[in-house]
């Protein structure tokens, strides 16, 4: 395709729109973020607790299947919540989406926009959640077992789940990935909208 036949959406522009859209619906964004925060905090705390125990006993600890199941469920509930929230956002913004398509936006710009919005919420939620989860567990273990717990904390020393550094990264990655997954269906629905439908004046 000739140079002038291309349509672009620079990342900076998408970022700007995504950030502002979140800001204007601040409290709803906060609630969605809170959901992610709690689920990831839970994940982080389980992993941290297991890591500390394993390092203190100097042997590998297995997380019991039941506990894994509970964690998996909580993450699933979180994803469902994200999907619900994003679907609401898409429905509210029918007109905006239709208008952008009239200005020349490709379907994938719309998808990018919603995935970006969702992953931003995911990033903030999982950052705070991970830190909170890890800290909470450290405090609990220290109050139970004393300061020797601190010697059990390693940061990027070993490539395993008993290393706090890797737990940190894993939890944040999980949070972001889950929020993207949760937003895929709503973003796809938004992108596939026919502009005319999006613009119908509600009677």
């Amino acid at each position, binding site marked *: 395709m000739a140079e002038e036949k291309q*349509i672009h959406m620079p990342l900076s522009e998408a970022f700007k*729109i995504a950030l502002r859209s979140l800001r204007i619906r601040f409290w709803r964004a906060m609630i969605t973020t809170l959901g992610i925060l709690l689920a990831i905090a839970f994940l982080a705390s389980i992993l941290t607790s297991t890591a500390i125990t394993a390092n203190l006993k100097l042997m590998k600890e297995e997380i019991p299947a039941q506990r894994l199941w509970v964690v998996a469920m909580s993450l699933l509930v979180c994803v469902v919540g994200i999907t619900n929230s994003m679907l609401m956002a898409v429905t509210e913004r029918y007109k905006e989406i239709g208008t952008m398509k009239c200005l*020349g*936006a490709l379907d994938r710009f719309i998808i990018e926009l919603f995935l970006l919005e969702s992953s931003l919420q995911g990033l903030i939620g999982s950052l705070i959640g991970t830190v909170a989860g890890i800290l909470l567990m450290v405090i609990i273990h220290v109050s139970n077992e004393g300061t020797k717990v601190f010697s059990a904390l390693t940061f990027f020393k070993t490539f395993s789940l008993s290393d706090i550094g890797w737990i940190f990264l894993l939890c944040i990655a999980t949070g972001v990935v889950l929020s993207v997954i949760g937003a895929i269906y709503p973003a796809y629905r938004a992108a596939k909208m026919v502009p005319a439908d999006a613009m119908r004046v509600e009677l």
Partner: protein
Amino acid sequence: MEKAVDERPNTVKTIGLVKEYVMGSVIVKALQGIQIEIKKGEYISIMGPSGSGKSTLFNMIGGLDKPTDGKVYIDEIDIAQLDAYELAWLRCRKIGYIFQTFNLIPVMTAIENVTLPMVFAGVPTDQAMDKGRELLELVGLGDRIKHKPLELSGGQQQRVAVARALANDPAIILADEPTGNLDLKTGKEIIALLKRLNREKNVTVISATHDLKMIDVSDRIIWIRDGRVERIEEREEVAVKVGEIEGEEAG
């Protein structure tokens, strides 16, 4: 007297346009075979009562929806044959849209709204901003470029929408009930603005409306009723006396 055949190329042409909607068990026939030709630089008003199908026709011409049957040609190109990229390109560069409900992006300022189509077209930021400023000045909003739509009146929002429609120097402006949500005086200003652009920039203006004030500025008027073209009138054929509502102007 025989009218000379207009040999100018068609900017917009539709052949046998049909659009049917399925609503439950009923099939609604919004358009039942529309055939029109619009030349470059014309100012056309598509008029008709509510439910006549003019908005549907507008959507077909603007590539916003697909017809059930029939063809739409823009600059001799059948738009049904365009892929997603080319359709987006068409909407970005060739056509400028103006809506009854203004449709500005609420989280962006006036100038950001106006420059958005330019961003999509890949215009460098500085150039886009300069042009955006120029366009806003053209529509009389040079002092409100950083205002958000919330902070602008209906008429001002519609002016921003007009400026946005011109962002990439389109060949066609499609206006769907542009004065629908505006009061009498503001509506007149917008119509005057559109006519001025039509004359100065030779942009084809196609407006779907039931505002009779449009008749005065149109080159031709296409009357739609029940999904069919009822009649097409040239400006000169229409005898219109613009009445005095609210005693605003003298005959």
